[in-house]
């Protein structure tokens, strides 16, 4: 048997070069369930994010509680929350697009942020803003520098995908080509700055802006590697750049020193990648066609998804995030379910205007897109007969629960995949008012990251969800 770390090594220009290999049969143990050295099969983590929450409604409760319900306040049914809990729940109307994946995912309802809300600066309780920070990082908004008026905010710490990608208990068999890949679909962002632009952050004001163009994504992942001579020259160039950064840092203040430290880390990563030869793997076809505007979002997701799955298959990364739409998305949708179709209204507007028809179509679109993406993971079969989804943990979520009211209650959580056997799928868990970070902690443990707790600044929990196998 050959070990997972088996590589072809060579020396060139004084640097060692390594050739990563995809998973081959001789690497497995005799029962094909684990790597020969006793390590489990590689687990993957993916975030699938959509903006604007769900049309789950709290209004019917408000109308019931107030003494004089507004006659225009028509009670609206909750079409998301399954009526039964436990294993083998019944799909609800909004989950219908996921029907073909039944048995492969669990749903958690009732979760909400538990993080503290500082009183100054004002506005840190805003649903989109507090919600997106908790969903993505388990922490409150970064208080210093927060400015509600122009909607300027930063996360307080790295998002979960980066936490996973950089955790010592994750890439235990050596660093891959890319620690993570960030892709996105809709370009209809609310603001052209800050957390409205990206769902993956390395820290405050450190965005991993998703690649939204299939051609650019293909180039990023499967760029033709330079030959050895060129790679050597580029490595020498980067060595000089690294030295320039180191010489400059001591002259700067703390914040700018930190920004340059991040720049330095990135240069080092790129240099490391230069030294990895091309993975011996079948590349996908380069994408063709333009994907302008919002009308072709589903087709764009399809193309991006193919490239991503090829990267996963070739083990070029094990962490990714997909920003289908970002928080408070202004993706245009009409009542017939046509993205940017005639009479389309921006999703964010539709939420606030109480335009349930359009919001329903947005929800359908989100769920269909999620199902289409999961199709690609189930179509990809490992050497041992398991699908890519079986070895993955995919967190499908949004920045809050009910769009109408900016309510952070009932934030949707869909956890798909079996994480290599760590997750028992097909549960509905209901935890009304529960701490959202139970989802984070469950994801981490399923990936083999044994943090005792997760969540910060009031959001701490050590409570996992019941479908995590011990």
């Amino acid at each position, binding site marked *: 048997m050959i070990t997972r770390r088996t590589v072809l090594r060579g020396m060139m220009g004084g640097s060692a070069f390594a050739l990563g290999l995809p998973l081959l049969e001789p690497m497995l143990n005799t029962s094909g369930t684990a790597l020969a050295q006793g390590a489990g099969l590689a687990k993957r983590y993916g975030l699938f994010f959509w903006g604007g929450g769900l049309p789950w409604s709290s209004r019917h409760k408000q109308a019931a509680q107030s003494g004089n319900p507004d006659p*225009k306040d028509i009670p609206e049914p909750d079409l998301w929350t399954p009526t039964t809990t436990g294993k083998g729940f019944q799909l609800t109307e909004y989950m219908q697009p996921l029907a073909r994946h039944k048995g492969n995912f669990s749903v958690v309802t009732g979760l909400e942020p538990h993080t503290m809300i500082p009183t100054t600066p004002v*506005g840190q309780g*805003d*649903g989109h803003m507090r919600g997106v920070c908790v969903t993505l990082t388990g922490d409150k908004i970064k208080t210093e520098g927060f400015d*509600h*008026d*122009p909607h*300027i905010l930063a996360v307080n710490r790295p998002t979960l995908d980066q936490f996973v990608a950089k955790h010592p208990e994750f890439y235990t068999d050596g660093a891959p080509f890319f620690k993570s890949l*960030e892709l996105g679909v809709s370009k*209809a962002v*609310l603001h*052209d700055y*800050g957390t409205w*632009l990206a769902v993956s952050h*390395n*820290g405050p*004001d*450190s965005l*991993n*802006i998703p*690649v939204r163009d299939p051609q*650019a994504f293909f180039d*990023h992942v499967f760029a033709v590697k330079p030959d050895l001579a060129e790679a050597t*020259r*580029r490595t*020498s*160039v*980067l060595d*000089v*750049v690294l*030295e*320039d950064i180191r*010489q*400059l840092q001591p002259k*700067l*203040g*703390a*914040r*700018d020193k930190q*920004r*340059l430290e*991040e*720049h330095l*880390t*990135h*240069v080092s*990563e*790129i240099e490391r990648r230069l030294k990895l030869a091309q993975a011996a793997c079948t590349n996908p076809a380069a994408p063709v066609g333009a994907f302008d505007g919002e009308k072709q979002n589903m087709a764009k997701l399809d193309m991006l998804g193919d490239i991503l799955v090829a990267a996963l298959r070739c083990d070029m990364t094990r962490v990714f995030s997909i920003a289908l739409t970002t928080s408070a998305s*202004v993706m245009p949708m009409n009542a017939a379910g046509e993205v940017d179709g005639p*009479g*389309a*209204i*921006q999703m964010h*507007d539709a*939420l606030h*205007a*109480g*335009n349930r028809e359009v919001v329903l179509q947005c929800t359908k679109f989100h769920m269909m897109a999620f199902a289409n993406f999961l199709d690609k993971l189930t179509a990809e079969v490992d050497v041992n007969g398991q699908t890519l989804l079986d070895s993955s943990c995919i967190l499908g979520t949004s920045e809050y629960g009910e769009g109408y*009211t*900016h309510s952070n209650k009932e934030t949707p959580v869909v956890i798909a995949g079996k994480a290599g056997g760590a997750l028992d799928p097909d549960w509905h868990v209901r935890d009304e008012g529960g701490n959202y970070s139970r989802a984070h902690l469950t994801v981490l443990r399923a990936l083999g990251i044994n943090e005792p707790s997760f969540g910060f600044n009031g959001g701490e929990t050590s409570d996992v969800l019941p479908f995590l196998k011990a």
Partner: protein
Amino acid sequence: MRRYAFLACAALLSTACNGSVTDGGPVAGGPTGPGGGGASNTGGGSSVEVSNAPLDPSPAVLARLTAPQYQNVVRDLFGVDFPKPALEIDTRPYNFSVIGASSSSVSERGVDLYGNSAHAIAAKVFVDQALRATLVPCQVAGDVDAACLTQFVKDFGLRAFRRPLQDAEVQRYTALGVGVGATDPWLGPRYIAAAMLQSPNFLYRVEVGEPAAERAGWFRYTAYEMASRLSFLLRNSAPDLALLQAAASGALSTPEGVLAEAQRLLADSAPTRAMIDQLFREYLDVPLLDDVKFPVEMDPTGTIAVSMGQEVTSLVSRIALEEQGDMRTLFTTRGTVVDASLATLYGFPAPAAGTFSPVELSADGQRAGLLTTGAMLTIHNRPNRTSPTIRGMFIRQRLLCGTVPPPPDNIPPLNEMDMGAPTTVREKIQQHALDPACSGCHRIMDPLGLGMEEFDQYGRYRAMYDNGLPIDNSGDLDGIPFNGARALGDLLSKDERVSACLVKQMYRYASSRLDGAGEEGMLSRLNAAYADSGHKFQPLLLALVQSEGFRYFKSEAP
């Protein structure tokens, strides 16, 4: 995308709306609280209050080049108009991409893209024999010539890093060139250039400064740093050789020297025009026009968004540059330029296709000034109707530099769906005014936008709504009633807050950061100088670059 104002109405009482309408600072004119105070300053000229508060400078920042700056810089470095490089997008907090560039960290992919761009540019330049000869004037012979490489490193490095290189840097880059040039001597300068284009000394505008003997505790930007500050402000690009020489000679160490170089740069009209376009496009959110879907009958060629943007920048540059006139007339001028699609919108005969021609709006017409341009009327709306709230918010935040406090949490929706009788926009949002939980904040915004209802969400004039109901375009600017967007523009032209706001925004743009608390006094003095000049743009710029805030900084608090 269109800016979106969160609609703020709640059954719960809001405690949020006690904030003042203006955002601090000793600004004259206008009321100082929501709904309170008297009329704004109706006179022209300098009846501006000036603060004596001395300057307490803010720390320096480290701004990365924005994508347009990067493109301009490489064009000027090599004398080649390269195709637009694929770089990570800029972020634009507080209106300006330079503020995003000084506050955000670049991502790994962003660094990767810089690398791809650097190698692509260097490859293209150094295979061009004529071009490379201009960059490397000494003989690059069969054997790699270290002396020649050293000269290239110093000469090119001065321009790439916007300062002379230190000895250790010269050695580092020369050694790189010697190493890679072993097989082909021209690879040496090519990879030196590629490395420099990835260096933080190129990608960031480094401002380390030197202690200022004349001001204890302060730092002075060095001469080379001043050259960059001037050039990036006035040209959105790196210093040219003349400016670098002025730095070397010590000319930039005095305000007079700074003034002289600024005047030289501003005399060059093409880059100055480009700078004004860039600045005001960001200040006025012109890029948001790209996301608007105009009705086909109004925009058959799909180009009116571009035309609208060009009209706005032409308007600004005409007053700021060509006429060197009073910037307040931006809100009242009846002169504008139209192409075929704008001519139809404003009711003029169309000029030849693809051209703009100047027109004069009628003296008793609905339109005059910036607020009545198609661009400004269109950008801040909903797709399906006008939004007095968003229009009002733009004017309040962007033109008056006012603040709008956040809405309460858990707001119920504004029920927009017509239940029975048709409603006007005013009626739809009247809950903002009637509900005390809403009105505290909404009266900061809505009465401004409500006075502009005679223009629809695409900037077209209308006498009534589509449902036949009449338009009521009565509005209110902090206690002063008005009817119509043109009248509001007239009020804004006399409102000192607008000028003070422009000064503040210019200062932020010039500094690549927000203004600090210790700069308020200086800003009010700049505002006074601006008023004294007759509210002219170039004198404002010149006063700004000579100001102490532009030439000094303090180190960060420990």
